[in-house]
C-alpha cells in the first residue's frame, strides 16, 4: 500500500519535473529539472525491484550524462544573463507534437486493451545484484562486448570531433 502511494507520488514528480524541464528557456534549469526527474525515476526503479539499476541510473544519468550537459553549457559560455535572452518556441510548432501524442495515446490504450497481462499488477519482487550479474555475463556476454566496443568507438569519435583545426593540423604534421 505504501509502495503504491509512493509510486504515484514519484510518478507525479517525474511528470511535473520533466514538463518543467522542457519548457525552460535556460538550459541549466532544464538540466536541473531533468536531474530531479531522473531521481524520481530511479526511486521508481527501486520500488520495482531493481536496486542496482536504480543506483546506476543516478550514477550514470545524473552523475555523468547530465554533468556532461552542464559542462558543455559552461564551455559555450551560457551565463545566467545570456540564458535569459534565448527565444521561446512558436505555437505553430506544437502541431506535430499533438499529433504524435494522439497516436501514442491510442497505441497505449490499444496495448492496454488487447494485452491480457497488462491488467495484472506488478508483483513485489527484488532482483539481487548477484542474479543481475550472472545474467549479464552469461546470457548477455556478447551484448556487453558489443556495447564496450561501441563505447570505445564513441570515445574515439568524440575525440576526433572535438579536435580544433589547429590541433588537427599540428597532429598531422607530427605524424
Amino acid at each position, binding site marked *: 500500500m505504501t509502495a503504491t502511494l509512493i509510486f504515484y507520488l514519484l510518478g507525479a514528480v517525474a511528470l511535473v519535473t520533466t514538463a518543467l524541464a522542457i519548457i525552460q528557456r535556460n538550459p541549466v534549469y532544464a538540466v536541473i529539472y531533468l536531474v530531479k526527474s531522473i531521481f524520481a525515476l530511479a526511486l521508481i526503479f527501486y520500488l520495482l525491484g531493481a536496486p542496482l539499476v536504480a543506483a546506476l541510473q543516478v550514477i550514470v544519468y545524473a552523475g555523468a550524462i547530465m554533468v556532461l550537459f552542464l559542462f558543455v553549457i559552461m564551455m559555450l559560455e551560457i551565463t545566467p544573463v545570456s540564458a535569459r535572452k534565448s527565444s521561446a518556441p512558436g505555437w505553430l510548432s506544437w502541431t506535430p507534437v499533438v499529433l504524435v501524442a494522439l497516436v501514442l495515446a491510442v497505441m497505449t490504450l490499444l496495448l492496454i486493451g488487447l494485452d491480457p497481462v497488462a491488467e495484472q499488477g506488478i508483483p513485489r519482487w527484488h532482483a539481487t545484484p548477484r542474479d543481475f550479474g550472472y545474467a*549479464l555475463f552469461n546470457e548477455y556476454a556478447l551484448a556487453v562486448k558489443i556495447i564496450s566496443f561501441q563505447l570505445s568507438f*564513441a570515445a574515439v569519435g568524440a575525440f576526433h570531433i572535438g579536435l580544433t583545426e589547429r590541433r588537427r593540423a599540428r597532429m598531422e604534421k607530427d605524424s
Partner: protein
Amino acid sequence: MIVPMEHLLVLATLLFVLGFSCVLVRRNLILILIGVEIMINAVGLVFIGAAALWQQVDGQIMVLLLMAITAAEVAIALALVVHLHQRKQSIDVGLFDEMRG
C-alpha cells in the same frame, strides 16, 4: 502487488510524449538532446516494469545496455554541439539548415 502495469505504461507514455515534444518544438540543440534523454528514460521505465512483471532480470539488463548506449550517444552528440558552436557561435538549430533542398 505494487501498481497495475497499465498505470506504469501510461506514465511511460506521458514521459515519452514530453520528451518527444521537446525534440520537436525546442530550437536549442542542448534542449533537443535533453528531449532524447527523456525519451530513453521513458523506454527504460517500461523495461524495468516488464522485468518486474515477469520477474526476470532481462529487462533490467536492457536498461543497463541502454545507459551505455546513451552515454556513447551523448558523448558524440555533445562533441558535435561544441563543434557546431565553434562554427556559428550559436546552438540554434535554425541556423544549421544549409543542406535544405
